[in-house]
């Protein structure tokens, strides 16, 4: 078995190397698929992170009744902290709210001074992180908060939040769809390329068959060749992607400066890279298998 494996790898490599010209082409085709896939993963990752960041600035305000007791206040605060979508809470007292109003509407400041009481309620200003469930969950949270003792009113800017959440969802779906299509495309392309290269070598396969070589002897090297092409193609693509990103990064950063707050542009994680290489090899292997099974038959 070990001898057989060595034979397959040996023959696969020799065949790859002797047919360099055509092999490089198949390799390039796989590389392109992996490149596009990798790019998509990177862009998708950044897009999701950006949207998360933006939606983190979405706010929910809980206005407290003037007569709210400290117990009621802390019950509300506890309810807020229990909600996973809540990522930050600012406490605004009645005095702070008044000061803010005076700052925002200086013309009205005299009017508020005349008012018998401070008419502005104290509030919790809550920063929310987006998650796919948060739309409905927040609706529930808001409804629950509104009925809690000591709470005068609950407001939050659903409009932007919903948009961001749905944008995030949309990006995820589109990304998922595109990725699925690309993986399919890559698999089909590799199969096609391997089949074409087997087609180009069907004489060789026919000859080996007629001489009595066991089917595994004929197919094994082709499968190995597919894996070699897939693996090398993926490595090539990742290298090109890395180089391309390194070149494009300053430009992109300048474009996004201040707006996106992406931090450094991140390359694929090691696991993602390993996954892509392994996937490409698997696809190459599959291509080789399919091709070998369809082309190499005893009769």
């Amino acid at each position, binding site marked *: 078995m070990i001898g057989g494996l060595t*034979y397959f790898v040996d023959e696969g490599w020799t*065949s790859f190397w*002797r*047919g360099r010209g055509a092999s490089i082409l198949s390799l390039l085709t796989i590389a392109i698929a992996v490149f596009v896939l990798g790019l998509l993963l990177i862009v998708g990752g950044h897009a999701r992170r950006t949207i998360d960041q933006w939606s983190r600035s979405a706010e929910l305000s809980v206005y407290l009744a003037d007569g709210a007791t400290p117990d009621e206040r802390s019950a509300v605060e506890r309810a807020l902290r229990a909600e996973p979508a809540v990522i930050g809470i600012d406490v605004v007292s009645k005095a702070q709210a008044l000061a803010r109003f005076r700052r925002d509407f200086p013309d009205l400041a005299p009017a508020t001074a005349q008012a018998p009481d401070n008419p502005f309620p104290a509030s919790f200003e809550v920063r929310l992180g987006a998650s796919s469930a948060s739309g409905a969950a927040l609706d529930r949270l808001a409804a629950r908060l509104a009925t809690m003792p000591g709470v005068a009113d609950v407001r939050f800017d659903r409009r932007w939040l919903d948009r961001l959440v749905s944008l995030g969802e949309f990006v995820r779906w589109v990304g998922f769809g595109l990725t699925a299509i690309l993986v399919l495309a890559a698999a089909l392309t590799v199969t096609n390329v391997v089949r074409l290269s087997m087609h180009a*070598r069907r*004489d*060789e396969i*026919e*000859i*080996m*068959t*007629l*001489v*009595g*070589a*066991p*089917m595994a*002897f004929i197919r094994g090297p082709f499968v190995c060749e597919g894996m070699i092409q897939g693996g090398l193609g993926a490595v090539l693509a990742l290298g090109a992607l890395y180089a391309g990103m390194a070149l494009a990064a300053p430009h992109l950063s300048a474009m996004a400066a201040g707006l996106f707050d992406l931090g450094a542009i991140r390359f694929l994680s090691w696991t993602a890279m390993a996954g892509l290489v392994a996937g490409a090899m698997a696809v190459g292997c599959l291509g080789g298998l399919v091709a070998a099974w369809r082309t190499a*038959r*005893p*009769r």
Partner: protein
Amino acid sequence: MIDIDGLSRRYGGAISALDDVTLHVGRGEFVFLTGPSGAGKSTLLRILIGQEVPTSGRVVVDGKDLSALKPADIQRYRRTVGFVFQDFKLVPRKTVFENVMFALRILGVPDVQQRRKTFQVLKWVGLQHRATAYPIELSGGEQQRVAIARALVNEPVLVLADEPTGNLDPDLAIEIMDLFRDMNAGGTTVLVATHDRELIRRVGRRTVALDHGRIARPA
């Protein structure tokens, strides 16, 4: 060794390459198969290694009914037969040495023996100096000799040769026939399809003539 009984092979409906051929070749025999172009010689030989299936009739080789063999068994059977193809059928991406050695490799012969035996057979056909060449770099006659070397290297129990001297000069043709005769003397059954009357005359063995798919001169 070979028992052919009522063998026919039709292509489409119109073309009948073999028509009710019955032929017996005993173990250790040396038989020439002759006949004009298109008589069905190659078709008969192709059927004998399972490359083609009969339209009707029975073919038994070495006790095995070929039409009853499973794919893996056909491959195993082919490894016991040495076949010289009319169009050589060398693997273009393997060197001369690799082309010949391949026949030993698939038998699982140890590596060192593979090399020794391959080199020896290449010497028999006078091509040891071209071992590292690719088929495309060889002359027609040299390619033919590689095909012959590949057929003989694994010391098969049956040698089937289709026009093995068509690209060789008469002297070389006789030398190659001597090789076949040596194999035959060692117990190998040999069936050679050829046009070369001179060669048949000089080797002087049993001859079976085909014409339009029928046995013309049974022996």
